[in-house]
């Protein structure tokens, strides 16, 4: 029984010695009483009963008196003795009872102690005056797993070599405590047995010094508990907390928790940095809450409260936050309501991510996208983005117009369906994507509103994020093709002009001979001239007869034919000559009243000899639509008059040829941004596309042979484009008349 070792056992011999003494006395008294009683009974013949004191005095008084006396004394003595014995017995009994009670109590205490000791998580230890372990309760081994035998006889520090070397200060203090024989509480150390480096146990011990009756120091006794698990758990918890703390401090986003008053319960380093504070200062609840711009603080508080009231997490996609430096940033914050154990109040945990850069980048991207869209929209080319299967991904504005669909509506549709004119490009799209090279299709012909158009088509392969596709670029080059053909014509005209200038002199002389000769011949065969008559008389010819003869034989008509042919040839040469370039100095440029110019031309046209001959110009109704905003135009008056006259003659001739009913010509002027526009519009037969395309070509004519030189319009074109830097264009359709538009630059500087 371990308790016997623990409890002091020296009181037991004293107790048994006292018991032994009183028993002896009682036995002696009883012996004496018994002897006396037996003697007396023998003598009196009656047994002495218990307490028989009233015997026969008379007879044996003398004998008996001493005896009686003696007996009485003896009896008294006995009685006394008996009383004493009873008292002693009672005391003994009491003592016995007391002792039994004490023993029971002791046993109970021992049992309780044992139970406690056995049930407790602690163990009992004792050490002797040399501070060496003399006793360790069973729990020690059970709790620590360290064999008691390996500990007994050792000092505490001998059990904790490693710990002692780690924290010698702690041990020095502890030893001081032990050496001064003072009690101690909750001394924690790590025990480690030699050769066992893995399973060091954390022990927490408390102890009191033991002194014997003489007050001599006998050692220490105390309790110990194994707190290894707790220490490990604490250490782990500490580590984990430390790690968590490190993690939230490492996170560059703001992580914090605030109560409903906006006080920080938790904040990571990023949060503290944003507030220009430290984590400690931020979570110090003694500080008044509310950092930053008041409106922002108010808003955040309202958000937090909303989260708490609804008890629902909430994402605030964009939140304005002004940090301590005044930098305004945009945060994306998620707010989560939470109740921490041990915290009476609920709080809002917030994680705020600075999305300023992303937002700016996003805005930049959006801006750039808009910018690019504007750029591609501003391009005159039709741009159609397609995927490798030909489905539309992007359209620019001209493409939307050309296809008559919006981008949104066209997206995902096959491009050939939206742009039938481009359907033939599908093979090029595939090839361009396959080869990674752009493919050009110049001068592709296509029909737009029944008109022939030319388009340069280019298919560019696209590679973006491994998504392949292509952009089809289509430029309507109809105008350019026309201009180019005009330029070709102009070149032709210039070469004609050059040729004409070179040969003019050589041709004009023979033409002069023909024309002058014809005139002289006709003059000299008539009877009107006196010289003719004189000469005729001299040779005996009758001039009147001769004239009849000449008429009869058609000679006069033939002569007239020669003359007309000469006139026509002279006109051709003159027209050809107007193709040669002239400097501005040679040309008579001046500011001319447009209306005056047009009216002059109308008068000229009405009196034109050729016109009168072919048709009656007066039959044509002339309409005027003069723009009052256009008054003056800078030009060579004679040249432009010639051009307008040419256009009028052209219109009149065309209408006369086709017998247009109620022919009319509209003279219209208008002022454009850079040009003065003069238009001659007729309601004549109009022209086919074929004719239109060649109309300004030199020597191209639809008129009967001999009616036109085929140079009139090309001369006009040349005068307008080459000499005036203007434009001459025509629009017409068969049966719908024709409109010739003459554009002259308004700004003089533009003239080259």
């Amino acid at each position: 029984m371990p308790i016997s070792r623990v409890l002091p056992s020296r009181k037991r011999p004293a107790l048994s010695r006292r018991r032994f003494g009183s028993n002896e006395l009682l036995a002696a008294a009883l012996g004496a009483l018994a002897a006396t009683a037996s003697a007396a009974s023998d003598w009196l013949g009656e047994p002495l009963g218990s307490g028989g004191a009233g015997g026969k005095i008379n007879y044996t008084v003398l004998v008996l008196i001493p005896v009686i006396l003696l007996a009485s004394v003896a009896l008294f003595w006995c009685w006394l003795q008996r009383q004493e014995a009873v008292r002693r017995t009672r005391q003994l009994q009491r003592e016995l009872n007391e002792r039994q009670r004490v023993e029971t109590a002791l046993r109970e205490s021992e049992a309780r102690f044992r139970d406690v000791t056995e049930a407790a998580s602690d163990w009992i230890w004792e050490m002797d005056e040399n501070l060496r372990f003399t006793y360790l309760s069973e729990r020690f081994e059970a709790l620590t797993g360290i064999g008691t035998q390996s500990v007994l006889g050792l000092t505490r520090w001998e059990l904790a070599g490693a710990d002692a070397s780690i924290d010698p200060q702690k041990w020095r203090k502890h030893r001081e405590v032990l050496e001064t024989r003072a009690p101690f509480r909750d001394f924690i150390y790590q025990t480690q047995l030699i050769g066992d480096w893995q399973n060091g146990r954390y022990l927490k011990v408390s102890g009191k010094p033991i002194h014997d009756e003489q007050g001599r120091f006998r050692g220490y006794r105390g309790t110990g508990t194994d707190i290894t698990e707790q220490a490990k758990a604490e250490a782990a918890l500490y580590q984990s907390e430390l790690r968590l703390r490190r993690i939230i401090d490492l996170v560059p986003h703001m992580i914090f928790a605030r109560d409903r008053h906006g006080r920080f319960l938790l904040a990571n380093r990023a949060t503290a940095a944003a507030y220009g504070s430290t984590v400690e200062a931020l979570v110090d609840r003694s500080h008044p809450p509310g950092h930053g711009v008041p409106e922002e603080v108010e808003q955040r508080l309202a958000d937090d409260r909303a989260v708490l009231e609804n008890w629902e997490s909430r994402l605030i996609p964009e939140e304005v936050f002004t940090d301590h430096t005044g930098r305004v940033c945009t945060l994306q914050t998620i707010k989560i309501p939470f109740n921490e154990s041990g915290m009476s109040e609920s709080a809002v945990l917030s994680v705020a991510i600075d999305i300023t850069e992303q937002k700016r980048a996003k805005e930049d991207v959006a801006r750039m996208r808009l910018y690019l869209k504007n750029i591609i929209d501003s391009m005159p080319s039709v741009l159609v983005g397609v995927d490798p299967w030909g489905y539309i991904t992007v359209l620019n504005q001209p493409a939307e117009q050309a296809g008559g669909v919006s981008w949104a509506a066209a997206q995902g549709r096959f491009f050939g369906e939206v742009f039938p004119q481009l359907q033939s490009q599908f093979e090029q799209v595939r090839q361009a994507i396959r080869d990674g090279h752009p493919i050009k299709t110049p001068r592709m012909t296509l029909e737009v509103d029944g008109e022939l158009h030319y388009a340069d088509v280019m298919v560019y392969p696209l590679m973006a994020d491994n998504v392949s596709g292509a952009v089809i670029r289509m430029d309507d080059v109809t105008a350019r093709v026309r201009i180019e053909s005009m330029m070709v014509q102009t070149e032709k005209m210039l070469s004609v002009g050059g040729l004409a200038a070179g040969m003019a002199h050589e041709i004009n002389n023979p033409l002069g001979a023909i024309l002058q000769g014809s005139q002289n011949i006709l003059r000299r065969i008539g009877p009107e001239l006196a010289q003719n008559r004189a000469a005729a008389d001299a040779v005996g010819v009758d001039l009147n007869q001769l004239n009849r003869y000449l008429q009869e034989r058609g000679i006069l008509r033939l002569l007239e034919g020669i003359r007309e042919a000469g006139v026509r040839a002279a006109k051709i040469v003159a027209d050809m000559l107007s193709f040669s370039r002239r400097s501005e100095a040679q040309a008579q440029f001046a500011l001319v009243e447009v209306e005056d110019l047009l009216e002059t031309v109308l008068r000229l046209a009405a009196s034109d000899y050729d016109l009168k001959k072919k048709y009656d110009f007066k039959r044509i109704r002339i309409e005027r639509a003069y723009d009052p905003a256009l008054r003056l135009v800078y030009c060579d008056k004679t040249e432009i008059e010639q051009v307008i006259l040419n256009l009028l003659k052209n219109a009149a001739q065309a209408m006369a040829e086709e017998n247009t009913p109620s022919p009319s010509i509209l003279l219209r002027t208008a002022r454009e941004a850079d040009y003065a526009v003069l238009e001659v519009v007729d309601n004549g037969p109009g022209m086919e596309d074929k004719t239109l395309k060649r109309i300004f070509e030199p020597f191209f004519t639809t008129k009967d042979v001999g009616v036109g030189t085929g140079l009139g319009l090309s001369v006009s074109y040349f005068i307008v484009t080459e000499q005036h830097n203007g434009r001459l264009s025509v629009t017409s359709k068969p049966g719908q008349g024709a409109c010739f538009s003459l554009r002259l630059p308004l700004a003089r500087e533009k003239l080259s």
Partner: protein
Amino acid sequence: MTGWVLIVDDEEMIRENLKAYLEDEGLGVVAFESATHALFWLQAGVSCPVCIMDMRLPDMDGNTAIRALHELYPEMKFLIHTGSSSYSLPEDLRTMGLDDSRVYRKPLEDMGPLAAAVRALADPQEARL
């Protein structure tokens, strides 16, 4: 009208036709194919108030011939009859009283206006009447 109308032109048919027309108008006409011949003939001291001058001549150009004739016969009036498309009147000739109305371009469809001009120059009084 007194005096001769002088024609200088290297193209024979032009010369002949002008001469014929003007003679039919009742004018006295002499025609030469070069300026040298004309000058030689003028040395005889004949009166010659009007000259129709071609520009491209075998011996010298028409402008030079006019200058030479003007030097010798300041009273002589000139009409220019040229086949060149690019001819423009030199400034010194303008100071002699010539202007664009005196320039006639070949081919002449009608010689009437030229003849009228010759008459007007040869006899201002008559022309005015």
